[in-house]
C-alpha cells in the first residue's frame, strides 16, 4: 500500500500520524451556529467564523506535528445530515431519540438521490491552501448514509445504498480532481448488518472509489468487527481506520488469526474519555499493534472524531500520539541497525 501512496507523490514518514476528521468547535462557533439556526446570523458571517476556526486548527495540527491534516469539520453538524442537506433527494426528519435525553434529526430519502455539485471540495481547497502537509478529504460513506436515514423512496436498502454510492462517487471524483490524494470514507455503520457486506456494501464502496486515483481510507468505529472480519478486507480501499483503544485492543487477537492485509490507521486514544493518555500508554498500544503488523502498514490516530472533547483534551491527546509515535519510530530505527551500532 505504501507503493500506492508513493505513486501518488505522497511523502509520508514511517507510522504517519493523523486524526479521524472532526475536531472540537470553539465555543463562539457553537454559539454562532445556534444563532444561525435561529435566523439571527447570516450565512456569510457564519462562514467567516468557520474559516477562522479551520485556520486555527490547521495551525494547531502543524504545531503538534501531525503528518496528515484534516479540516476539522468546523462547518459540519451531524455527519449524515450534513451530506443529506447537500444532496438531492433528502428531507430532514423531526427529533429522534438516540439515548438518554439526546435527540437528533435523521435524513429521509424522499426522491432519487443525486449529486448537485461539490459539497466538501471548497473546504478541502481552503484547508490545503493553508499547509504544505497533505490534507485528507473526508466523506460519509454510502452504507452509513443509507443505514442512518429513513428511506421512503427506494424499494430496498440495497438500492438506496447503491444510489448513494453513485452520488458520493461524484464527490470523491471532485475531491481527487481538486488535488486530494488521500480520501477517507467514513463508514461507522458498516457492521450494522454483517450479511449486507457481501450483498451490497462492498459493491457500493467499489462504486464510490472506482477509477479515482487516490489513497482511500475507510473509517469504521463502534466495534463488531469480529462479524465482518476478514470479509471486510474485500472493501476496495488501501487503509482501514479502526477504533482500537476503546475496544481494549482485542482486535489484535483477531489479526493473529487472520493477518491484516491492508494498511491500518490504528486508533490509540479514546475519544470518549476526558482522560488524556500519557505517551507511555500510547507507545505501548503502538508496540502491541506492531506485534501483528509491519511498521510499513501502520498509521497512528485517535479512535474516532474528537469533536466531543475540549480543545485542551484534544491537543493533549494529539501530543501523546505524536510523542509516542516519535519514540516508536526511533526505536524501530535503532533495531534496524546492526547490533554493534545500537545505542543500548
Amino acid at each position: 500500500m505504501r507503493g500506492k501512496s508513493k505513486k501518488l507523490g505522497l511523502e509520508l514518514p514511517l507510522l504517519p500520524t493523523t486524526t479521524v476528521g472532526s475536531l472540537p468547535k470553539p465555543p463562539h462557533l457553537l454559539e454562532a451556529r445556534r444563532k444561525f439556526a435561529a435566523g439571527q446570523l447570516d450565512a456569510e458571517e457564519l462562514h467567516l467564523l468557520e474559516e477562522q476556526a479551520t485556520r486555527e486548527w490547521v495551525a494547531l495540527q502543524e504545531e503538534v506535528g501531525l503528518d496528515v491534516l484534516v479540516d476539522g469539520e468546523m462547518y459540519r453538524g451531524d455527519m449524515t445530515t450534513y451530506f443529506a442537506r447537500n444532496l438531492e433527494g433528502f428531507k430532514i426528519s423531526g427529533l429522534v431519540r438516540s439515548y438518554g435525553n439526546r435527540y437528533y434529526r435523521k435524513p429521509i430519502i424522499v426522491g432519487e438521490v443525486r449529486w448537485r455539485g461539490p459539497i466538501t471540495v471548497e473546504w478541502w481547497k481552503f484547508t490545503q491552501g493553508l499547509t504544505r502537509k497533505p490534507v485528507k478529504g473526508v466523506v460519509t460513506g454510502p452504507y452509513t448514509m443509507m443505514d442512518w436515514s429513513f428511506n421512503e423512496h427506494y424499494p430496498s436498502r440495497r438500492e438506496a445504498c447503491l444510489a448513494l454510492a453513485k452520488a458520493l462517487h461524484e464527490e470523491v471524483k471532485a475531491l481527487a480532481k481538486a488535488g486530494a490524494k488521500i480520501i477517507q470514507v467514513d463508514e461507522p455503520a458498516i457492521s450494522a448488518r454483517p450479511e449486507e457486506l457481501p450483498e451490497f456494501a462492498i459493491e457500493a464502496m467499489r462504486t464510490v472509489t472506482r477509477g479515482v486515483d487516490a489513497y482511500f481510507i475507510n473509517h469504521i468505529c463502534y466495534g463488531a468487527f469480529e462479524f465482518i472480519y476478514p470479509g471486510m478486507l474485500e472493501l476496495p480501499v488501501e487503509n482501514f481506520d479502526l477504533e482500537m483503544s476503546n475496544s481494549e485492543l482485542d482486535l489484535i487477537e483477531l489479526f493473529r488469526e487472520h493477518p491484516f492485509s491492508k494498511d491500518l490507521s490504528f486508533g490509540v486514544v479514546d475519544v470518549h474519555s476526558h482522560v488524556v493518555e500519557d505517551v507511555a500508554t500510547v507507545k505501548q498500544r503502538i508496540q502491541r499493534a506492531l506485534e501483528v503488523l509491519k511498521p510499513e502498514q501502520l498509521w497512528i490516530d485517535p479512535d474516532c472524531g474528537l469533536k466531543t472533547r475540549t480543545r485542551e483534551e484534544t491537543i493533549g491527546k494529539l501530543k501523546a500520539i505524536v510523542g509516542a509515535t516519535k519514540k516508536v519510530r526511533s526505536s524501530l530505527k535503532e533495531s534496524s541497525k546492526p547490533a554493534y551500532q545500537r545505542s543500548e
Partner: protein
Amino acid sequence: MELLTASTGSYPRVGSRPEQQRHRQTYAQWERGEISSEEFERVQDEVIREVIEEQVRAGLDVVTDGQVRWYDPISHFARKLEGCEIDGLLRFFDTNFYFRQPVVVNEVRWLEPVIKGEFLFAKKVSSAPVKPIVTSPYTLAKLSINRRGVGLAELVHEFARAIAQEVSELANAGAELIQIDEPAILKDQNEFELLKNALEEVAASKGKAKLALYTYFGDATPLYDKLVKLPVDVVGFDFTYSPGLPKLIARLGCEKGLGLGLIDGRNTRLESERDVIEVLKLIAPTIGGKRVYLNPSCGLGEYLPREVAFKKLQNMVAIAKKARELI
C-alpha cells in the same frame, strides 16, 4: 380471525411542537440539579397521560404507557435488580439507539417491583386496556457483561427468576396481557433452549394474565415452528426482517395468538393498505377464529419522530378497519 390493533411498546416522548419539548427540557433541568426529582416525576406522568391519549386517539385497541420512564429496555430492569451494575453505552442491535450495558457482579435477585408502579398509573389514566412490557430474561442476560463467574445458562435462569416475580406482580395488579420483549434470540438461534427454560419459569407465575412474546430486529423464519410452541399465549414477529414469514404462517398455521409486526417501526414511510391486507388475506385461513394483533414491528419511541409515530398508528388502524371489512 379477530383483528385488534396494538402498540408494540415505546412511544416518542418528545415532538416538534414547543409544548412537546417539555420532557426533554425538564430532563435536562433535572440532570443539572435545577429541579427536584418530584418535579421531573410530575412531568413524566403528564407525558405518559399524553402519549396514552395519543394512542387512544389514533384508535388503538391496546396501548402502552410509552415506556416514558425507561432509559432503555435493558438498564431499566437491571438498575433495580440486585447483582447488577450499570456500565457504558452500547449500540442496541443494528439501530441508532444506545443502551447502558449492565454488568452482573453478583447473583441476580428481584428486590422490588420494577414497572408495577408505571403499569398501575397507566391503567388508572387510560381509557383503553394497557399492556405492560418486560424485557425477556434471555435478552437481559445476553446484553449484560457477565462478571458473575457462572455460565450463561445460570445467568438466564437468575434473570428468569426475577422477571417471573415481576410478571406475578403485574398479573396481581390486574394486567391481562403482559408482553415479553425478546429480540436477542433471533441473533443466536442455537441458544433456544435457554429461552425455552426461562419462559417456562416465567409462565409458571403468570396467574390469570396472558403472555405475549415479541421478537424483533431479525428474521424469525428459521425459528418460527419452535417459537410458536413456547409456553406463551401470543407470539409477535417483525415482518420487516422476515420476508418469508407470511407464506410460512399460511403453510404451518399457528395454535397461538399472533402479533403481526407488519408496520415498520423504524421507517417513516407509511405502509400501503394493499401490502398489509395482502398478508392478512394470506394468513387468515390458517388463523381461524383466533385473535391476532396488528402492530408496529417494534416500539416507536427510539426510532421515529412523534408526528410520524402518530400517523403510523392512525394508518395502521385504518388498514385494520378495512381488513375487517374485507376478510
